[in-house]
């Protein structure tokens, strides 16, 4: 009993949440709007990735890999559409993140802030790594991997996720 990790729960104990259709559509749009609007006033805000955090939140809460993948793909393509780059860069990265987050959500309890910080920071790094690989190897874009900046961004996104997930928890509906 002592050898078992504290966060590990049995499959039956993990609760699956649902969201209303309006919430499912509006929250990603609001995340995209904030992500696109706030850097106008505060340029450094672009270090955050609210759409990615929303993807992780939905994937973990729904605990469905298909739903997580589709959510990630749609939100990622939405992010791509606002840039001038090829469509699919963020789409691919967030599809992977959605799959991974929902798979992880089935196995561990992601309700406490500490776990959320670690999970979000980890998936931020995964997102950046996939984006970097796809951009370099498929599109041939010259990108520079900046460890310090990426780790700092991962940590900051993890901290924001604690607050954001607490707000978004109010929209959860248990099954």
């Amino acid at each position, binding site marked *: 009993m002592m050898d078992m990790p504290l966060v590990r729960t049995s499959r039956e104990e993990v609760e699956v949440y649902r969201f209303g259709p309006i919430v499912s559509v509006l929250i990603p749009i609001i995340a995209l*709007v904030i992500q696109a609007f706030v*850097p106008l006033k505060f340029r450094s805000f672009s270090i955050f990735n609210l759409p990615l955090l929303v993807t992780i939140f939905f994937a973990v809460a729904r605990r469905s890999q298909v739903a997580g993948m589709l959510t990630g793909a749609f939100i990622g393509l939405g992010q791509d559409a606002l840039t*001038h780059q090829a469509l699919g860069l963020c789409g691919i990265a967030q599809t992977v993140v959605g799959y991974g987050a929902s798979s992880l959500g089935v196995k561990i309890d992601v309700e406490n802030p500490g776990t959320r910080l670690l999970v979000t920071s980890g998936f931020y790094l995964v997102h950046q790594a996939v984006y970097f690989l*796809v951009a370099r190897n498929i599109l041939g874009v010259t990108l520079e991997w900046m460890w310090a900046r990426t780790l700092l961004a991962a940590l900051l996104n993890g901290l924001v996720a604690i607050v954001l997930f607490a707000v978004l928890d109010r929209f959860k509906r248990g099954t």
Partner: protein
Amino acid sequence: MESFFSRYRNASILVLLLFAQVLGLAVQVKRGTESGGTRLIRFWVVNAITPFEKALVNTSQGVGDVWRNYFYLRGVRRENRDLKEQVERLRIEQVRLSEDAAQARRLQALLGFKEQFVSQTVAAQVIGTSGSDRSHVVYIDKGVSDGIKPDMAVITPDGIVGKVLQVYHNYSQVLLISDPSSGVGAILVSSRLQGILQGTAAGEVMLRYVMTDEKVAPGETVLTSGGDRIFPKGLPVGTVQQTNPGSDLFLNIRVKPAADLSRLEEVLVVTSIAETNPRNEASSAQPVRAADILAERLPGVPPKQPATGTAVVSGAAKPAAPSAANPGNSAPAGTANDLPSARSGVAAAAVATTKTATKPAASTMPGVAGTATTGAATKPAVIKPAVSQPSASGDTAKPKPIGSAVQPAKPDAKPSQPPPGEDVSR
């Protein structure tokens, strides 16, 4: 097979989704330009997001205006006094600068340079960004319905901002000069070195392709060179911030943009760039003699047919075709020929010019003599075929408004009138 998919259903869907997106990326890379499908996705997303952004911008601007205009009026009197003093200073400076500008125009006219200037702009509000630090683009609230087209220059009064990349009905996407995929032709003011301005992934602006053996000092001003055919020449770009020798043969010159790209609110989209020959402006600014005006209005003497083999180019009986290179100067070619009294010296001037035109005529301006960059190079005076080459400076020394002779006539037309202001003494 069925059991395989049912067993690995989620993984299969993941692979399918990734494959579809990779395929989409490959198609976009292959085509180079956007296909209809991707354009549609962008259209949907932009039209879903930008109305919210526009509402947010308008709301924040309205609240800010109310606060600044009705509540926060501290220091307004002092600011008003300072602004008045600044206006006085600027007036004095304007007088000096207008003299410099007039001199520059005269010199440009003498050298036959064409000058570009921004003739029409559309003011636009910046309403959003891409939200990504890897894509330096902003959205403005003007689109096709306002006459915006791709590749139009976007500027502020401080300096250039970027160019229009994609245009929607009411919105446009602007690629900032700080984006790595951006490129602007630029020139250093004092050293006249030219390079290409490019962004970096970190959002910095660098001037590329300046050789390492050149001296570039921090603080030097950078202007647009006009070589990209998007930005008119001479717009402020920024100042040199730092210079380092690069790994290759070129310097790494970091430029601080003149426009604050991180705090853009209103911008101007250059919808029209006019290109004029300053000679027209310079010459039209000169006083016209009353005799010339009267002579133009009075019926003229019917033109005399020129005797064949003579060097006198007075046979412009029918008006020469308006020149494409000099559309502003649309006086009929035969005008000068209709002025027996006022232009009596012109024919003689033509004779003198054509006779001596086998070698470039001396210019009245030192340093301009014999140069091939005079107006004659682009607008050769049409003279008798026996003449081997036109005067290089004949039509630039004294620009006159009715310069029909500098217009290239129709190929089959008779030789047109030489410059009316030609110096007879030559």
